[in-house]
């Protein structure tokens, strides 16, 4: 670390503060949940007392929703073409014309209790990549808490791959470290420091020349991922002031995952694709990359909170006084869609995973609090970032409920007088028709899904391909049950001070 860090840079929750700082941070923790609940309460309240105005609001909101859908679809379409193009580019050839021999990739693969098959697939994917494995430093980051079985898998992988990559390090994150929350953040922060001491320092590698890819254990790099990442790193004027965000595909097991899991996973992919076209709204998500130097300067990931993937971006943004951004590389990495031994377990896992993602709202108090403390960040950037985050999480937990469930509320509780109005009769039909128009965009979604699908495995019948299209009829269910409700739950938990811990998504392969 060569930078004096703000004492507030690594706050995890209000209870770590005292006095007025505690009060402010706690109030900010209450903010996202209270906004969502006030919105939902107001919809009920106004539907009962002011059904006419509420109906106009719902109609206007539906128009807003459909236009927003169209607007975002334009972004999705553009990114779809960009990803297609990027997949067709020979990135190796591109970087051949550049000086890149000094660049090394540090790949962090944290795991907990995943199977040997899952761990090995990620390692073999690194070997399959069109990149010199000797320039890849692989850290397999295990947890002491995971026990002997996980440790044995690590040792087996180390034995098998230690001489193939430029370096291979098996780390074991100790359990029960005071002040740490068990989870990915604390594991990879430990692994990164171990890699610095045992690989980078030992080999005298400059930190500025190392690009860290923080993967999940199921992350499978596409062939040209490292070439593409290297190219983006090299052409950027300030590569130490940016993180790089690939597009998360969930193709590893997509043919085996149930329809709701596929829709949930692909919807996440689509959202990330849309955000790739709006880089000013983009924060790092899931598998992401950045320079080791930037990471080292802020002492790696936070170890005391859940959403380490997005928080690391905000850590860097604040530590660099707002002079930090995310570069969307529009190149995919593939991961697992939710899949467990039974459909019910899979559905529960989807819910829990989305609740964890929804708990990214813990960034809101963090960001605003640090914006208050840091006077060097331009006000415009503070305002913009705050609005994007607050609006984003508010939309996540309330908009689908308003659109798909509460649109009928004035008709149900608006009273006799309102129920005799033409407006009352038309409201359900108008909102339904607007939603159906918005749902037409799902045809486009289905088309994109098909074009990024891996080949249908042998023995899988053709109707499975048809299901990949028909699955999008489940979108309204998905957006309520696996997006709005878990989002609302996580915001409520934060609001009530019932802080969440890190939940490891089970990885299962058929």
């Amino acid at each position: 670390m060569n930078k004096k860090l703000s004492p507030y840079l690594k706050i995890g929750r209000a209870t770590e503060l005292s006095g007025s700082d505690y009060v402010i941070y706690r109030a900010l923790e209450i903010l996202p949940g209270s906004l969502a609940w006030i919105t939902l309460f107001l919809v009920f309240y106004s539907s009962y007392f002011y059904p006419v105005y509420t109906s106009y609001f719902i109609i206007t909101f539906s128009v807003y929703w459909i236009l927003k859908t169209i607007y975002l679809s334009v972004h999705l379409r553009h990114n779809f073409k960009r990803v297609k193009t990027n997949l067709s580019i020979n990135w190796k050839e591109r970087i051949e014309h550049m000086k890149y021999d000094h660049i090394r990739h540090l790949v962090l693969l944290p795991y907990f209790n995943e199977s040997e098959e899952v761990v090995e697939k990620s390692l073999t994917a690194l070997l399959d990549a069109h990149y010199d494995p000797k320039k890849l430093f692989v850290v397999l980051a295990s947890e002491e808490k995971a026990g002997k079985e996980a440790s044995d898998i690590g040792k087996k992988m180390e034995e098998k791959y230690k001489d193939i990559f430029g370096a291979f390090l098996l780390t074991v994150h100790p359990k029960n470290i005071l002040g740490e929350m068990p989870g990915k953040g604390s594991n990879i922060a430990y692994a990164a420091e171990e890699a610095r001491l045992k690989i980078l320092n030992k080999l005298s590698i400059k930190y500025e020349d190392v690009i860290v890819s923080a993967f999940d254990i199921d992350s499978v790099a596409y062939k040209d991922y490292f070439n593409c990442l290297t190219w983006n790193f090299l052409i950027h004027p300030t590569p130490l002031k940016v993180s790089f965000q690939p597009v998360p595909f969930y193709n590893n097991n997509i043919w085996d995952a149930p329809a709701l899991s596929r829709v949930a996973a692909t919807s996440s992919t689509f959202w990330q694709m849309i955000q790739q076209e709006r880089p000013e709204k983009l924060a790092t998500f899931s598998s992401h990359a950045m320079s080791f130097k930037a990471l080292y300067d802020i002492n790696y990931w936070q170890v005391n909170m859940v959403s380490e993937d997005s928080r690391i971006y905000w850590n860097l943004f604040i530590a660099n006084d707002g002079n930090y951004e995310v570069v969307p590389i529009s190149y995919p990495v593939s991961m697992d869609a939710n899949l467990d031994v039974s459909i019910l377990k899979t559905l529960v896992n989807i819910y829990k995973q989305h609740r964890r993602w929804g708990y990214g709202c813990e960034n809101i108090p963090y960001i605003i609090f640090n914006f208050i403390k840091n006077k060097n960040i331009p006000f415009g950037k503070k305002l913009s970032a705050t609005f994007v985050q607050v609006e984003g999480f508010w939309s996540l937990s309330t908009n689908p409920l308003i659109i798909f469930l509460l649109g009928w509320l004035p008709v149900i509780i608006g009273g006799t007088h309102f129920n005799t109005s033409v407006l009352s009769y038309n409201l359900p039909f108008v909102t339904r028709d607007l939603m159906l128009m918005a749902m037409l965009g799902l045809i486009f979604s289905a088309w994109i899904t098909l074009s990024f699908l891996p080949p249908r495995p042998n023995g899988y019948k053709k109707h499975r391909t048809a299901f990949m299209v028909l699955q999008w009829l489940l979108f309204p269910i998905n957006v309520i049950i696996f997006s709005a409700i878990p989002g609302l739950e996580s915001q409520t938990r934060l609001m009530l001070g019932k802080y969440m811990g890190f939940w490891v998504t089970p990885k299962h392969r058929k």
Partner: protein
Amino acid sequence: MESKPLSKRKRYFYLSVCVIAFFILSPIVAMYATGYRFGDKYEVMKTGGMYIVTQAKDFNVLVDNVPQKSSSIFRRNFLVQDIKPNTYDVKVTKDGFMSWTKKVVVYPEKVNEMYPFNLPETIDMIEIPKTVMSPVFSNGTTTLKKKETENKEFVYVKNLFFATTTKDVLIKNKISNTTSTLDQATSTVSRKKIAIENIANEIFVEWFGDEDSIPLYFCDLDKCLKRMSIYKGENINRSELFLDRNDLVIFSTKDGIYVTETDGRGGRNIQPIVMGDYDFRIDEDGTLYLKKDDKTFYRVDLKS
């Protein structure tokens, strides 16, 4: 080759188009939902509608003698909308059933709800015999014999008409009361906060729930009456809510048994069930029984 994100210029363009579209579309959709439509000369005008709930399938709805739609198993309710504010003749018909007609006033931005009723032209009255023949097996033989025994249904129906129960007393008390005392409303003459009273050959219906939830058939536009007279005649013996309908009243006079509606907008329909000096009872299962001359009882099948 598209390797850069969508340019800010393009994004602002798309955003601007969407924002403009929002400000144009929102009021248009809101006005459409409120009932605004283009008139014959492309002038913008407010329209209203009517909502007609038929009682079963295959009923035809006519507005000013123009056929609208017919009810089906899946669709008994019709919303006739986009109509100019005016008075319309609405008729609901079906072969073998009495017609229901009403003059319906359509107000701008309002929907008039109507619940037509159409009784069968010929009522299926099944006489309930006093006795029935029951099979009896003789001792030691397999010969089947029949013996005349008392009909349980006859006894049940007779009790409905003649038993002096607490219920009857309460009804009598209620009928003899000249002022509306809602707290005394009995379970028989009141249902779902609606009380029926027969005072000096005039039938009143009264709503004793809160004003916000008063049924629409107590109202004309925004004016609602919590108590209103629905029929005045001679020799009214008995009145009750009709079967499971809260907007229909069945009553008996010396001339016959009739059904009329609470909804007085555009004239009340009155349809006879049977002509003549009959009395009636509706049991807790909703079955209608008739009595003639104190000794003959009928079960009425009104299923359409």
